[in-house]
């Protein structure tokens, strides 16, 4: 391994961490705003920078500042080692699991693209670690996060924390089983545990997606439902957030945590959401693939795609700019003082959306440039960016589904939770595995 | 009319009959010497036999009343007082004033005889405050009689002492009620006292007291002089004797008439009293002072003038003989309001129903008169009258209630025509017979 390869791996690690960690604050903001809209509230709207509130995004900044500045309260009777290490585990686990997720098709650098380098065609897999264990690695790691919660619960030396920790571990272990079984179904139908291969298999039509064709529809759908439900439980999100049952056990396992330690738990939850969404997308929803556009096709027709995207982006962004301009007549702006700094906001938004429109125009220009043969942007790079963008869009959609479900459904009772897990999902998952096996035999035998 | 007897009024036509010399020429003070020769019990018996009923209004047999005075051994050494009730205040009644003015010796003689009969050493003539001029004449008569030895110590050498004093009231209708009169005589507010004890047992100054009307006293003179049998030749079986009637209102010859009891009422009104003004029809008659129930022309036509007949025919009373005749020009609502104003003005203010109720009834009637009332008010009025009647210390409450009850009952149209009809109240609610078309009895809260 040479330094370049090490550099490439380091860059990929950096990207993976950045991918998760940059979505987390946006997700936190998104959850606040979406939940507010679901409940007909305005959501966060007080924090501002020079009158610009950015729809409440500034609050995330203030939260970060606040959490850094806050006193780190440490219970006297806490078991120090456990207590210290506990918040780290879920976060590390969340980031670790992301290492095997592919975020694009392989990135090929043709030989001698940059003078002498590379010596031969260099194919860089777009995932941090392409290991054979693949999904198994994820299963192994994600089950570790329960340690963080258990240690936090135990180490806090607080009965609420302890109860929360116990609940969490019982819940996570219960649902891991069903989750594993539903993943097994996908292994069967894909015939591999490697996520990059799974992603490749789903290219093309959306009927190549995991929940559809390769799985004979019903098997994949059932597997998806079980998997998604388990993911909800694994991430301790509503309707399965019993470890934090505020009404009964205060805040559960992280009752005693404050400041950045609490923030770690907090972020870990969102990191898990992102990882969960990413895996869902990877397993069932075509991974990074753009529907109906195989990577090869995409690369071949990248000019047209860029032009189309850019041209579509301009009116859309201008429409949003127009909306923003219209919003200056809201009762809100009539209610606050004329010299209030927030009066600038409509202009700000108009500017932002105009910039976005310009960016779209730039995209179109890039496509045109390729079309006329100027090659301002390499086709491979464009494909990479489009794939990452596609993945981002899909992941964000499922993150929204997380939030959506949270603010729609009420919390389960603990016995209901256990009932559902053990008496409903596990049998159904086992049956589904059988079904999948039959399907695979049929497929291999009759349809091949 | 030929049949007009002249027992009490025998000296009225004689000029200056109030002078003792003139009066004695015509038979005054002739009975006294004979009476003094009788035992007190004998006189009482004669009066009892004559069936003389008190002429003040209640019609209680005089001799029976005298019999209530405890015998000397039961009096604890207390004296007996005779009080002559000359507080003639009943609207429509003015016979006593004539009697005292025209022929004071007639009743003075009766007073002395009565005082002797019941064993009283002092007799008080309680005159209403407005009768200052009458008092002067009575005082003169007393002085003349005293000079002749008919009044004072050792009357006519018989050893009997009777002092007669006049006592002037000061304007209060209620002082015509015997216990109120005694209170007033004692120098207090003229408020009726509780019965029992009755005045004949415990009256003025807590001593046995007999209170008799002026006309009664005058009749006693005649009865003792002529005997009970002679007296019974006049009048009817149960209402023997003659009666002074004072007629007022819409008749051509109002005034005081002495009549033989039992003559037809309509004849009396139409002939003796001069009849109505030409072209007028009789509308109603109040036969015995304002407080007795009213009579319709039909009842007048059927009734004869005596205690029983009037009550049987119309439920009314002969009372004090103050007959008020009303022709068809009369507005009965206004008339009743006028009467109630009188009662509201004259209530002594002692006991609750009368104190508060008369004023309230007047206020309602005032509104009825002015057209500001509804038929619910009429039901209230009737109900109030029922609530006052016989719930009070003295008879005043009933006196105020009876006109309301009877006027509403017998002339409902007069009142219903003056009020706003809500339809909640029917004729039965005011105690009236429902006419043909009207449904019997509305139901209102007031009526309940």
């Amino acid at each position, binding site marked *: 391994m040479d330094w370049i390869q090490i550099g490439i791996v380091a860059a990929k690690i950096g990207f993976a961490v950045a991918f998760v960690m940059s979505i987390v604050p946006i997700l936190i903001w998104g959850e606040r705003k979406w939940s507010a809209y679901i409940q007909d509230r305005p959501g966060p709207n007080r924090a501002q920078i020079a009158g610009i509130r950015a729809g409440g995004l500034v609050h995330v900044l203030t939260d970060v500042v606040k959490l850094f500045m806050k006193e780190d309260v440490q219970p006297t009777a806490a078991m120090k080692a456990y207590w210290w290490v506990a918040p780290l585990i879920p976060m590390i686990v969340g980031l670790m699991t992301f290492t095997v997720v592919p975020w694009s098709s392989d990135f090929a650098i043709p030989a001698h693209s940059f003078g002498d380098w590379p010596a031969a065609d260099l194919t860089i897999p777009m995932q941090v670690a392409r290991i054979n264990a693949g999904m198994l690695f994820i299963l192994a790691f994600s089950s570790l996060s329960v340690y963080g919660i258990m240690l936090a619960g135990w180490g806090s030396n607080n009965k609420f924390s302890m109860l929360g920790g116990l609940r969490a571990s019982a819940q996570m272990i219960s649902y891991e089983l069903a989750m594993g079984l539903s993943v097994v179904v996908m292994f069967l139908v894909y015939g591999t545990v490697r996520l990059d291969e799974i992603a490749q298999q789903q290219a093309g039509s959306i009927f190549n997606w995991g929940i559809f064709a390769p799985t004979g529809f019903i098997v994949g759908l059932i597997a998806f439902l079980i998997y998604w439900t388990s993911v909800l439980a694994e991430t301790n999100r509503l309707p399965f957030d019993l470890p934090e049952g505020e009404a009964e056990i205060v805040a559960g396992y992280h009752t005693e945590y404050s400041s950045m330690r609490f923030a770690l738990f907090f972020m870990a939850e969102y990191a898990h959401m992102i990882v969960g969404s990413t895996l869902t997308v990877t397993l069932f929803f075509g991974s990074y693939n753009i529907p109906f556009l195989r990577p090869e096709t995409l690369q071949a027709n990248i000019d047209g795609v860029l032009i189309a995207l850019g041209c579509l982006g301009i009116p859309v962004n201008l429409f949003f700019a127009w909306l923003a301009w219209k919003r200056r007549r809201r009762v809100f702006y009539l209610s606050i003082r004329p010299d209030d700094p927030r009066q600038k906001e409509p202009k700000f938004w108009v500017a932002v959306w105009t910039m976005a429109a310009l960016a779209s125009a730039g995209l179109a220009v890039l496509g045109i440039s390729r079309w006329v043969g100027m090659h301002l942007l390499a086709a491979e790079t464009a494909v990479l960016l489009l794939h990452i963008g596609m993945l981002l869009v899909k992941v964000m959609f499922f993150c929204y589904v997380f939030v959506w479900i949270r603010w729609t459904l009420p919390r389960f009772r603990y016995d209901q939770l256990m009932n559902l897990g053990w008496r409903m999902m596990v049998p159904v998952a086992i049956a589904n595995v059988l079904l999948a096996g039959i399907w695979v035999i049929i497929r291999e035998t009759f349809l091949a | 009319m030929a049949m007009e007897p002249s027992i009490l009024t025998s000296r009225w036509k004689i000029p200056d009959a109030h002078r003792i010399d003139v009066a004695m020429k015509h038979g005054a003070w002739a009975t006294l010497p004979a009476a003094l020769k009788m035992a007190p019990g004998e006189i009482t018996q004669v009066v009892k036999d004559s069936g003389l009923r008190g002429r003040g209004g209640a019609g209680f047999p005089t001799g029976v009343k005298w019999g209530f005075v405890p015998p000397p051994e039961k009096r604890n050494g207390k004296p007996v007082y005779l009080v002559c009730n000359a507080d003639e205040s009943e609207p429509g009644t003015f016979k006593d004033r004539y009697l005292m003015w025209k022929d004071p010796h007639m009743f003075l003689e009766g007073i002395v005889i009565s005082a002797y009969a019941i064993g009283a050493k002092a007799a008080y003539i309680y005159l209403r405050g407005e009768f200052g001029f009458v008092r002067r004449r009575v005082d003169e008569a007393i002085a003349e009689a005293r000079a002749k030895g008919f009044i004072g110590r050792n009357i006519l050498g018989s050893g009997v002492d009777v002092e007669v004093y006049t006592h002037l009231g000061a304007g209060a209708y209620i002082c015509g009620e015997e216990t109120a009169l005694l209170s007033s005589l004692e120098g207090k507010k003229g408020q009726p006292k509780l019965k029992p004890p009755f005045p004949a047992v415990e009256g003025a100054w807590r001593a046995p007291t007999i209170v008799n009307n002026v006309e009664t006293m005058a009749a006693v003179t005649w009865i003792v002089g002529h005997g009970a049998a002679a007296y019974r030749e006049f009048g009817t079986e149960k209402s023997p004797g003659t009666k002074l009637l004072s007629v007022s209102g819409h008749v051509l010859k109002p005034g005081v008439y002495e009549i033989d009891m039992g003559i037809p009422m309509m004849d009396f009104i139409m002939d003796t009293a001069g009849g109505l003004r030409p072209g007028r029809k009789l509308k109603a008659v109040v036969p015995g002072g304002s407080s007795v129930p009213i009579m319709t022309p039909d009842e007048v036509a059927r009734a004869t003038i005596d205690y029983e007949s009037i009550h049987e025919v119309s439920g009314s009373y002969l009372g004090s003989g103050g007959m008020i005749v009303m022709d068809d020009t009369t507005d009965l609502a206004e008339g009743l309001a006028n009467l109630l104003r009188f009662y509201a003005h004259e209530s002594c203010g002692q006991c609750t129903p009368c*104190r508060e109720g008369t004023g309230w009834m007047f206020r309602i009637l005032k509104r009825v008169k002015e057209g500001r009332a509804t038929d619910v008010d009429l039901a209230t009025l009737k109900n109030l009258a029922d609530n006052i009647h016989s719930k009070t210390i003295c008879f005043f409450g009933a006196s105020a209630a009876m006109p309301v009850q009877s006027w509403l009952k017998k002339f409902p149209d007069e009142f219903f025509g003056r009020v706003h009809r809500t339809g909640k109240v029917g004729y039965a609610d005011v105690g009236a017979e429902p006419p043909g078309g009207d449904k019997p009895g509305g139901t209102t809260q007031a009526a309940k």
Partner: protein
Amino acid sequence: MPTVKVNGIEVEVAPGTNMIEAARQAGVDIPHYCYHPHLPVAGNCRMCLVDVEAGGRGPDIACNMQARDGLAIRTDTDNVKRMRRSVMEFLLVNHPLDCPICDQAGECRLQDYYMEHGQHHSRLADEKITRTKRQDIGDLIILDADRCIACSRCVRFSDEVTKTGELRLFNRTDHTEIGVFPGTRLSHHYQGCLADICPVGALTNKDFRFQKRSWYLRAEPSVCDRCATGCNIDVDHDHGEVFRYRPRRNDAVNKSWMCDFGRLSYKRLAAEDRILTARGPEGAEGVDAVLAGLAAAVDAAARDHGDGSVGLVLGTRATNEANWAMLRALRAAVPGARVFLVEGNDPDAFDYTDDLLVHADKNPNTAGVRLIAEADGAVGDAEALRAALADGGLRLLLVLADDVLARLGEVRRPEALAFFGTWANATSEAARWVLPLAAAQEVEGSFTNFQGRVQRLQPAIPAAGDSRPGQVLAAGLARALGEDALPAGAAGVFHDLAANVPAFFGLSLAGLGAEGALVHREPPTEQVAPPDTRPAP
């Protein structure tokens, strides 16, 4: 004894009893306003109208109906209900809607009977008649003629009880208005009773005015301690604060009345000069420490100078129990101690006496202490005390409740003085040890009034500050002196007292009842064993 029937219940009553009282004995409450058991019958409110079943005619008022054989009344017929409703309506026709500002609210007969007998909707469509409101007619009375229902109770009270006749009903008809002669004021010292007997809010107590709504108050029966009459009172209190005294009916003592001096004496419970903490030679130390110091001094005096150098003055203002417990405590520890009884009035007693209720002796328990002293046999009087003080032999004097120094006047003071009292006075000023004695309304115990009637006190409020009942202090002193056997509870002390003082033979604290019990004028020769009413240990 005539037998009458009330609602079918036969009841035998004393001759001359009216039917309201007879019905009360039959357990039937007949509503009334103008009738008052201690005033002449006026019969003008008409609220007590009842149906006469037998022995009379028609509906009649119960207050003016004397019980006689064969009389039967009913109070539960529809007619009676109708009559009550109509009378209530008449009473309220011109009554102002003053309940929110009226102090009588909560104990107002109009309200009570209205809830029970009223018709609960108004038929009055006309203006009400108004009369003069808020007239200041006496030191203790505000008159609101508008609220008056002309029951004339106050008129009869001022005519028959105080015989001053200031109050009259003026005018007639519904303009009848209660009042005094313009320019004059109530002059007697029973003004508070006017507010008590007024069934509505026309006469209200200026002192109590707007202080508290009556329904927040709880009443505890007690006895007034301002003079030897010992009027029975109800102590109205809320959350440990006394707001007023009201006379409690006791026909043998105060009927339904009490004087204004006694009535206002509730203020003394929270007065500035209350002794709230124990004080010894070194300042405030706590009751037990001061008692210990006092006991040491008693011991020392008795040891050094003989028993006769210790003296005790019994308190005519303290309860029987306090006196007896004190006497027993000292006699047990210092058998030869000299005991005195100094009668007389303290300087803080009010200077007024009449022949109605206010007794010349302003101490509530003179009679009781006399009896205790008599039973003890060796109690000296004021002269004896003066003499004992003059010769200097009396070195330590314990004083219970009374301002003995003021009563004695110029006298040589003892070397050391201990004062058990409720209010500061000349004796407490001069005392070396001062112990806080709980006031009469704060303790359980008994007073014996001038008639020899033993009347029970019950604690209405907790004792103020550190103060304690006399028997508790006495028991504490006895303990400090080494005597542990004496009872400290009031019932126990009274039991002991009844067993030892002949005049009290056979009495028990719980057995005194609401009206008290007379002591034996001539003590029975044999001791009657009192019932032991002490609670089981």
